[in-house]
C-alpha cells in the first residue's frame, strides 16, 4: 500500500454560501452595475408616453432638458459605481461570482 506520489486532483472549487458584509456589498454593487443599462433604457423610453394632445406639450426643448438631465444622472451613477466596484475583487474568496 504505497501512498500515491501525486495528490489526487483537487476538489472542485467550492462556492461560498455566506459572505462577509464587504464581499456581499461588492456582489450587490455588481448586480447594480449590470442593471444600469436596463434602468437607463427604461428611463430613455419614458418620454414616449408623454402627452402629445396639444402642440405645446412634449416640446423638443423639454425633451432636451429631460434627456440630457437623465444622461448626466446616468453618468454620475456610472461614476459612483466605477469608484465603488473593486476591480481586483475578482480574486476574492469564493471566486468571481459571475453567475
Amino acid at each position, binding site marked *: 500500500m504505497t501512498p500515491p506520489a501525486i495528490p489526487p486532483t483537487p476538489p472542485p472549487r467550492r462556492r461560498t454560501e455566506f459572505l462577509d458584509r464587504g464581499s456581499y456589498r461588492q456582489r450587490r454593487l455588481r448586480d447594480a452595475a449590470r442593471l444600469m443599462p436596463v434602468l437607463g433604457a427604461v428611463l430613455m*423610453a419614458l418620454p414616449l408616453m408623454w402627452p402629445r394632445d396639444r402642440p405645446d406639450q*412634449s416640446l423638443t426643448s423639454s*425633451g432636451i432638458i429631460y434627456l440630457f438631465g437623465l444622461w448626466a444622472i446616468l453618468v454620475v451613477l456610472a461614476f459612483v459605481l466605477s469608484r465603488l466596484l473593486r476591480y481586483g475583487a475578482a480574486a476574492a474568496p469564493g471566486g468571481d461570482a459571475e453567475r
Partner: protein
Amino acid sequence: MISFNLLIAVSLAYVAFLFAVAFAAERRAAQGKTAWLRSSAIYTLSLSIYCTAWTFYGAVGYAARSGLEYLTIYLGPTLVMIGWWGLVRKLVRIGRTQRLTSIADLISSRFGKSTGLGVLVTALAIVGTTPYIALQLQSVTQAMGVFAANSGEVWGPSDLNRSAMWVAMGLAVFTLIFGTRNLDAHERHHGIVLAIAVEAVVKLFALLAVGIFVVWGVAGGLGPTRALIDASAQAQWAPMPSRWIGLIFVSAAAFLCLPRMFQVLVVENADERVLSTASWAFPTYLLLMSLFVVPIAVVGLDLMPAGANPDLFVVTLPLREGRDGLAILSFLGGFSSATSMVIVATLALATMVSNHIVAPSWLNARMPGAVVSGDVRRVVVMSRRISITAILGLGYIYFRVSGGGEALAAIGLVSFTGVMQVLPAMIGGVFWRGANRWGAVAGISIGFAVWAWTQFLPSFGVDAMLSQAVFERGPFGLSWLRPHALFGIEGIDPLVHATVWSMMLNAGAFVLVSVLTFPNPLERLQGAQFVNVYEYSSGARAWSHSAAQAEDMLVMAQRILGSSEAQALFRAEAAAQGKSGLLPDVTPDFLSHLERELSGSVGAATAHAMIAQLTEGAMVSVDDLIAVADEAAQIMEYSSQLEAKSAEQERTARALREANEKLTAVSIQKDAFLSQISHELRTPMTSIRSFSDILRDGEVDDTARRRFAGIIHDETNRLTRLLDDLLDLGVLESGQVQLNIGEGRLSDVLDRAVMASGIDPARVRIERTPAHEGVTLRTDLERLTQVFINLISNAAKYCAAEKPRLRIKVRQTQGATEVDFCDNGAGIPPEFESMVFEKFSRLEDQGKAGGAGLGLAISRQIMTALGGDITYLPGQGGAGFRVSLPAAAAAPAP
C-alpha cells in the same frame, strides 16, 4: 474672406502634426514607455472614433430634419458603456486572453477557430463598412467644397473627386505607416491610438466651440435659444416609438459590432481597469458631443437661406458670421472625425482580410506539410498593406460610383444594421456554451441576407438595385418577399422593419441550429474558454516544451484515466525510458501511446485534438485542456456510476438466485431432516428394541446376553449423543448459548483438539507450523476446541487419500486470525459446497461417518456465537475449511 489655400495649408499642417504625434507615440512605445499610452484618458478618447464625420456634420442635419431622434445614436453606446461590467468587461477579458485581433477573430475563434466564419464576418464587415468609408470621404470633400465656394471657386464633381482621392491617399499612407509597423500578438498600434485621441480632443473642442458660439454669440443666450427651438419646425418632439427604441438598440449593437469599435474597445485595450473610467467618461464625451446639436440646427435653419444643406451648418454658420478661424477649426473637427474613423476602420478591416482570407489561402496554396517558417510574418504584413490599400480604394470607388449625395447620407444607419448581424453570434458565443459554429453560420448568413434584401439593396433607391416592381409586388411576384413588407406585414418603418426581421431570423436560426447540431471538440473547448473566461484567464500560461509538459499531461491524463491508472501508465513509461519517478520524456512513442490510452476513454478524435493541442498548441493552454478533461471526467464518472449500479444489480440478482437455490435445497432438506431424524432415531431404537426383546424372553446364554446388553448400551449412547447434538444445535441456533470466555494460546487449543479427536498419528499426518501459532486468544476455548475437533475428525473420516495429510495453517490478517484446515482428499464437489454447513448434510451415506451430519452445522453456529466465521475454502487440493477469529479474540503473543 478665407482663402482656400490657407485651408489646405492648415489641413496639411494638421496632418503633419498628427504624423508627428503618431511617430512620437511609436518611439515612446519602442522605448517601453507605454504606461501613459495605456491610460484611461487615451482609451476613452480613442473610443470617440464612434463619432464620425457622419455624426460631426450629420447630427446637425439629422436634428434639423428629425428633431431629437439623432440622440438615439449616442444613447445606445451610453447604455453599453454604463453596463460595462456585464458585457464589455467580458469581451475585453476574452480579447486579452484569446489574443483576439478583430471581431471576425472573435467569432471565428469562439466557434472552433473556423476559417469559414472568419471569412463570412469579414465579408459582412467589408460590405457594411466600405460605404461608410465613402461617406467620410464625401463629408470631407463637401466641407472643402464649402470653403472653395466661399473663396470664389465653384467646385464641380471632378474637383470633389480629386480632393477625395487625395484625402484617401493621405489616409492610406498614414494607415500603412502606423498600422503595419508591428505585428505583435496584441495588435496594438500606439501611434494610431494616440493620433485618434488627439483628433478626439480636436473634434470635441471644435463642436463645443461652434455650439457655444452659436448659442451665446448668435442666438444670444440660453433663453432665446430655447425660444428659437420652441418656434422651429421641430418644436414638438413626437418620436415614433418603434424607431426611438429600435434606433437605440441598433446604435448600441453597432457600438459593439462595428469592426473599428471592436478594434479600439477590445483589441487596443491593454488594461481592463481603464474600462471603469471609460464607463462614465465616454458617455460624458458623447453627451458633450451632442449637447449643442439642436441649437446649431435650429439657429442654422433660422439664419441660413432655405435649401442650405443642414449637414454642413457646423461649417457654414461660422463662415456666414465671418468667423473664419472658427470655421477652420470646425473643418478640422470634421476632418478629424472622418480621418480617425477611416484609419481605424481600414486597419480593422485589413487585419480581418489578411488574417482570415489572405493568410489562410496562402497557407493552403502551399504544399501540404510544408514547413511553415518565419516568412509567414512577412506574408501577413504584406497582405495587410495590400488590404489597406484595397479597402481605401474600394471606399473611393464606392464614393465615385454612388456619386455622393443623399443616397450616401442614408448609408450610416444601413451600415449599422449590417454589422449588427454579428451580434447574436457574439452575445451567444460569450454567454452560451451551447452556441456552435453551424448556428453562427446560419444566423449570420440569414441575418446578412435579410439585411441585404430589406435595407442594403433598397438603400440605393428605387430602380437602382431593385426595380419598382420588386418593391410593389415582390420578386417573381412573391408578394410576401417585398423588401419593405416581409411576410406581408406592411406599414412598418423600413429601418425598424429591417432591424426586427433580420435580428429575429438571425437569432432564431442561430439558436435553433445550435440546438440541433453538435460542436466539435475545439469549439467546445473554446466555448468553455469564452463563457467561463473569468475562471480560466487568471493563470493562462504559454505552452513550453519542458518537464512541465509531461507533468501537465499527467494532470490531464489523471483527470481522464483516473489517478492510479494514469500514474501507473506514466511510471511504466518512465521506467521504460530508464528514468525513475513519474515523468517520462515526451517522445512520439509516448504520445501515441498516451493518445491511444486517452482515446479509450474519450474517443479518438478528442484524444487526438487534446494531444495535438498539448504538443503544438501555442493557443491552447493547459487550463483549456483541463476544462475539457473535467467535462470528460464528469461524463466518465457518470457512466462508471451507471456501470457500478448495473454491476451491483447483477450482484444482487446473483445473491438472490443463490439464496433461492439454497432455500429450495433447504426446503428439500427440511423434509429430509424429518425423515433423517426419525431414521436416525429409529435405527438405534430398532436394535435396542429387538435386543431387549431377546433379553426379556431370556433364552440366551450369558455370553450372548452380555454382548446384546453391550449393543443396547452402545446404541443408547449413540442416541444420547444425537440428542445432545440436537439440543446443542438448538441452543446455539436460538442464540441463548452461554459463552465461557477465557484466555489461552492457540497452539494449546490445537494440541488439545488433535489429542481429543483421537486420530491415529500414524494414519493421518498432521502438519502444523508452531511458529505461527503463538497467538493468545480470548474467547470460549472449550467451544473453539469443539470446532477444531470437528474439523480434524472430519478430515480423518472423509479424507480418502492413500496417505491422508491435514495441514493446519495460521495466518494473521487485518482484524482477524485465520486458521485453515486443508486435507489432501478429494474435497467437496462444487454443487455441495453450499450445503456442507447444513444439518444432516453428508456427502456419502451415513454409517461411515458414524455421526448424524451435525458437526459442521454446530461448528458454524459456534463460530458465529464467538464473533468469527467458518467457511469452506475451495481450490486447496482437497477439502479446506477456514476458521476466522475476530481480532478482539486474538492478540499476538508477547
